[in-house]
């Protein structure tokens, strides 16, 4: 994790230069479009566009591969779990039944396999744009962009505080847990029963909460001294006016979103199954 508690990687590409608010609009529009559809063709197109955009940001594969793996492993577990719990759900959605395997309690159908592929692609189509957002947006600029999008600045500032203090709290957590381990308080698997491990966790978390409460007072006093919250509006050190690229991308987002909604309202984009006779 970077010093600021987020995964930002410094580069000079189009995405790094874009305003945080524009990237947030892009992420939100992308998410809404993914939510609208249930058609694997849409997700494959989005996934490919996302990958191309991700490559244009020149992020080192070494740094992003962990997140990619997290999502792939999530998809594998999610698929296995869905197959075990509702092996005929795809047939329910599509209205046809093509039996593949008889599992005893239920039958696994070809429709379900295709449904799971669609669902996995749905999650995968969100991955590139999310990684792009996470790695190219500086945390301190994130608060400013939220404020620009209409979130009250005090709430936006709370994001800043959270990002700012995660590394400090992490350090506290580690030193408390080392101090406790020296007294025989273990957290890892095999260092006690489930109940004992929960108790041990409490023995670490309670001092952490205590020191955080003291920290709240210190930080709040420091901010009060500097006049935080005196005015109804504030400016941000890192904010910059929107350039041509920023405005262009927002316009593209709005158009694509409008087209998607229109297409969806006209009935396209529900579950698509290629083997319908």
């Amino acid at each position, binding site marked *: 994790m970077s010093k600021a508690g987020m995964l930002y990687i410094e580069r000079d590409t189009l995405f790094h230069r874009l305003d945080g608010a524009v990237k947030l609009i892009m992420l939100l529009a992308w998410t809404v479009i993914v939510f609208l559809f249930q058609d694997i063709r849409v997700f494959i197109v989005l996934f490919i566009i996302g990958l191309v955009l991700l490559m244009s940001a020149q992020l080192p594969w070494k740094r992003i591969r962990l997140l990619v793996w997290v999502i792939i492993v999530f998809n594998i577990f999610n698929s296995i779990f869905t197959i075990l719990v509702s092996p005929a759900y795809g047939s329910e959605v599509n209205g046809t039944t093509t039996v593949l395997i008889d599992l005893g309690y239920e039958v696994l159908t070809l429709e379900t396999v295709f449904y799971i592929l669609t669902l996995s692609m749905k999650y995968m189509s969100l991955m590139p744009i999310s990684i792009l957002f996470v790695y190219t947006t500086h945390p301190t600029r994130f608060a400013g962009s939220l404020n620009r999008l209409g979130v009250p600045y005090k709430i936006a500032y709370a994001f800043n505080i959270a990002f700012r203090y995660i590394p400090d*709290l992490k350090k506290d957590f580690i030193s408390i847990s080392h101090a406790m381990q020296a007294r025989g308080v273990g957290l890892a698997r095999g260092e006690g029963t489930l109940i004992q491990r929960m108790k041990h966790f409490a023995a670490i978390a*309670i001092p952490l909460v205590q020191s955080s409460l003291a920290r709240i007072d210190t930080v*709040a006093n420091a901010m009060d001294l500097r006049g935080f919250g005196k005015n109804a509006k504030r400016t941000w050190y890192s904010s910059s006016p929107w350039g041509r690229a920023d405005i262009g991308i927002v316009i593209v987002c709005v158009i694509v979103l409008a087209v998607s909604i229109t297409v969806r309202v006209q009935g396209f984009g529900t579950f698509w199954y290629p083997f319908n006779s």
Partner: protein
Amino acid sequence: MKMMKQSIFNLDTRTVVAIGIGAALYGLLNWVSIPVAPQTGLRPAIAILTVFGALFGPIVGFLSGAIGHIVFDLSSGTIWWSWVLGSAISGLGMGLVFMSKSFSIKEGRATGGNIATLAIVGSLALIVGFGISSVLDIYLFGEAPDKMLLQFIAASLSNITVHVILGVGAVLGLLKMNRSNSNLKVSK
């Protein structure tokens, strides 16, 4: 520490910092999960919502839950908006007990009823909050309802366990500590 209770809608500097630090703790501790079932674990982070809700009220609970969840998701790849909402509603429910006049952690006083309210309303908020998340997953992602129901039950059971044992336990500990810190007695 300030002894006066403030209006819950008044976002003063202390409240803003409490939201930020609460979110940081919730986001950080979300990395800790003790697995009990497939895709479900005991998430000790839930206890942070209990403590911050009870200490600072429903607004701080709601925003700490939402911001903490977003911050965690931002460092793990994808923002799950439906679950952000679940965390936020849970935090809101944990904070409702704060509005009772007989309850104040800072002054170390609470009735048995307050503690029961915290435990019960908090548990209900976990059920409602993550219930809404599960329903949204069915509609927004098209997840299979049976599978979501199973996941929801497992997650609710583990979250309520953490809330009641760890969360309410920590609140009782804080109450006891603040009570013994006060040397003042009412003379009759």
